[in-house]
């Protein structure tokens, strides 16, 4: 066997350029979060001072806690609704308007966030709903549900229908067949969908700022308003923590979806 051909110099250069374009800003942000100096752009030696500052910043902690709560609850609701929608679309009988329904389900994928946010705001105002945790959660559910539906539906589409039939043949009623055969097989996709919804909710600024109320700012809103008054090194520390959290979630999500797609096709030694 021949050795796998090495990357050419051009490849290496373009790879380095592309990666630095993507990650240099983040790298600098992470680096400066450990800066001892009060000035953001001047290096004053290593320190964890700004992390300490953040954990003593009550408003910031509250915003972070709010963001986490919103992300977890909206992701959970979105996963539930998105999975149901995906199941209905790929497993249900061909009902009238099915194509329209699936098209409408995926519209939020391409809808500008400003429009989603604004329309939700108008809705909440019209309903006279008190804006806060629940309105943001509902808004984020609307945004992320379609992502979950896409992920789960693609997995369902690749599943063999005769698996459910086999389960029914072996004594399961239709619901039981779904729970004992289909659900375990699409579980990785459901998990991946949840993670995706979680990260989307966590870093959303636009929709959250439209739909939240006074006293219940999410972390991105809080950061944004702080930055407008001038960048404090503390923001770097917060952002670094958020990046770390999202990175972990994304890695888990992609592992889960990889597992999901390899299952049934080839041996998955996991």
């Amino acid at each position: 066997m021949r050795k796998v051909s090495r990357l050419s110099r051009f490849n290496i250069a373009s790879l380095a350029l592309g990666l630095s374009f993507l990650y240099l800003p983040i790298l600098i942000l992470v680096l400066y979060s450990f800066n001892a100096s009060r000035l953001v752009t001047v290096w004053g030696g290593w320190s964890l001072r700004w992390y300490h500052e953040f954990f003593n910043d009550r408003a910031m902690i509250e915003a972070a806690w709010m963001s986490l709560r919103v992300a977890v609850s909206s992701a959970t609701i979105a996963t539930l609704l998105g999975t149901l929608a995906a199941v209905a679309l790929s497993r249900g009988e061909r009902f009238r308007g099915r194509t329209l329904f699936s098209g409408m389900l995926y519209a939020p994928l391409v809808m500008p966030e400003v429009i989603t946010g604004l329309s939700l705001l108008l809705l909440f105002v019209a309903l006279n709903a008190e804006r806060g945790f629940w309105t943001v959660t509902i808004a984020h559910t609307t945004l992320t549900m379609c992502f979950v539906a896409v992920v789960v539906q693609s997995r369902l589409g690749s599943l063999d229908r005769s698996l459910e039939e086999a389960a029914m043949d072996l004594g399961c009623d239709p619901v039981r067949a779904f729970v004992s055969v289909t659900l375990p097989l699409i579980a990785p996709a459901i998990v991946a969908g949840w993670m995706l919804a979680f990260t989307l909710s966590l870093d959303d600024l636009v929709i959250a700022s439209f739909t939240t109320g006074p006293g219940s700012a999410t972390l991105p809103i809080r950061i944004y308003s702080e930055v407008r008054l001038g960048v404090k090194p503390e923001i770097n520390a917060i952002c670094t923590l958020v990046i770390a959290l999202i990175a972990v979630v994304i890695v888990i999500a992609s592992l889960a979806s990889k597992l999901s797609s390899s299952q049934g096709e080839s041996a998955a030694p996991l």
Partner: protein
Amino acid sequence: MPAAGQPLLRIEGVAKTFGTFRAVDGVSLDIKAGEFFALLGPSGCGKTTLLRMLAGFEAPDEGRILLGGKDIAQALPHERPINMMFQNYALFPHLSVRDNIAFGLKRAGMARADIAMRVAEMVALVKLEGLEKRKPDQLSGGQCQRVALARALARRPQLLLLDEPLAALDKKLRESTQAELMELQRRLGMTFIIVTHDQEEAMTMASRIGVMKSGKLAQVASPRELYEAPRSRWIAEFVGDINLFDGESKLRDGHRLIIGTRDAGALVVAEPREPVGAGRFSIAIRPEKVKLSRRGPVSEVGRETAINRLDGVIADICYLGGTTTYKVKLDTGGTVQASVANSARLDVDAYSLNQHVVAWFTPDDCVVLQS
């Protein structure tokens, strides 16, 4: 359990329509307990739809399906004492071999110890010892087929349905699996209904074959009857190879009919049991019943008039190992195929291209078909 003499399964005027397409069109059929029955037909003939109605995945629009005297036509799959082996096996990829086999037993509410015993029994039955902990994707095609079979048999169904069970296996494995399936069916004394498009497979395994065409049963017969006495021209052509000559005139001569054909002149055939009516009809003869000789039939065959002799030249030779198929271009215009067993290793009996030969066969070897 049905009383003696009563069929295990009775299908009465069952029909199923998808949109405007009548997939199954008034099929009636009795299947006795312990039978190995094959539904044979080209793709799209409705055989799979019929099987799926027996399993409960489709509900018939018309007719009844009686299992042991009870109508199950509208019962859901899990309410029927019938199991099915799927064409693509449909093994649960997230479960091990053992759990796949135990799946139906758990649903039946069997005790743990009994399940373990039954699974071990099934594993031994299909010779999968040592592979119990494997997942389906770590098995070969043949092994998957065995797991699917064991899983379908584990609940000891009154009736086992097999949807193209050997289609995914290569030829050698298919042949050995055919033998194993037959042996298994005899040993367990179970009733099998197999769906296949492969006529050889149906002939080899089944004790009775139902040939389907456009949603209807064209003929239900034993393999021998189907081959030697097909009911129509279509069946004769679908099952095996055949020579067909269109009849133009007929003349009675005692127990024989003398039939004039355009392609092969006058042929003498035994009078069929059912009288030949008006309309198109043809003479059918299987290639292996056509004998070839250099001079014509020798005296031992009997009276000269009782034999059909067709002069011609060899136009094509197809050597198949066990047999050789010769295509003979007849002087009267048509062609006839003769399949000759290669009973000697050296080609003492072989004919060569363009050689003059006489193709001959007896009146009893011919079948008169009305189309």
